[in-house]
């Protein structure tokens, strides 16, 4: 176990993905749900960088940059929505936002 293969990176990435998914599904606080989405995106980034290293090409790293740009946009818009929601409803709990539920 002294050498690190790309499989190790895939396993770390998979565990991070599972943690992030459980965070999105389990938590009620929308702030923590958005943080969990960042964790999921980071799991994907680890995968992309590991394969980029495996193939000795930087295309995967270019893709990681795009993922980062989308993550920044997503965080900005998501937190803007969160502030607007808090102003209108007075809560940041996901399961209390149920106007569209039947």
């Amino acid at each position, binding site marked *: 176990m002294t050498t690190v293969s790309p499989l190790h990176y895939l396993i770390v990435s998979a565990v991070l993905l599972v943690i992030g998914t459980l965070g999105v599904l389990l938590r*009620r606080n929308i702030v923590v749900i958005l943080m969990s989405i960042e964790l999921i995106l980071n799991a994907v*980034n680890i995968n992309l960088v590991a394969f980029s290293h495996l193939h000795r090409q930087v295309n995967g790293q270019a893709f990681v940059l795009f993922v980062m740009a989308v993550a*920044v946009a997503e*965080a900005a818009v998501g937190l*803007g929505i969160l502030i607007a929601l808090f102003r209108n409803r007075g*809560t940041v709990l996901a399961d209390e936002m149920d106007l569209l539920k039947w």
Partner: protein
Amino acid sequence: MLSAALFYFFSLLTLMGAILCVTRRNPVLSGAWLIVSLLGVAGLFLLVGAEFLFVAQIILYIGGITLLFLFVIMLVNLEGIVRVRQFRRSWPLVMAVGIGLVVEIVILLLRGRLPAEATTEASAAGNTEQLADVLFSSYFVPFELASVLLLAAILGSIWMGQRRPGRQAHSGAGERVE
């Protein structure tokens, strides 16, 4: 040997930070553990030779996104949130979904076959130089589109964040968690 030790250290940082981020009751602590987790990911980037992404990860994620989270936590009153139930009531269903996801990923990792490691020697140009070459030749149009996306996100979040008089009439006062 040293790189293996560093790999396990950064992986531990990433996963421990992620678990603590998801389970903390106080969102400020969640944000702090998110920083630890993202630093671990940055270290993993450095280990596979993605120096530019290492720096971008620290500047963008830790300096940008996490700071944004902490600002929003300050703007939104979360004192009451700390005392209420943190997890959804339907957690057994969610755990079943999580176990399904784990099984799926394990099957994929066991059955999948990694391509052989490329033997071509890394080119003499540095990582940042190679990345810039690819980014401004093959991915030029997506690069410009990303800037349009960021502009749209800026305008959208400003528009949503502003206070509009006359729309505040039905603020859900009864559901306020204090």
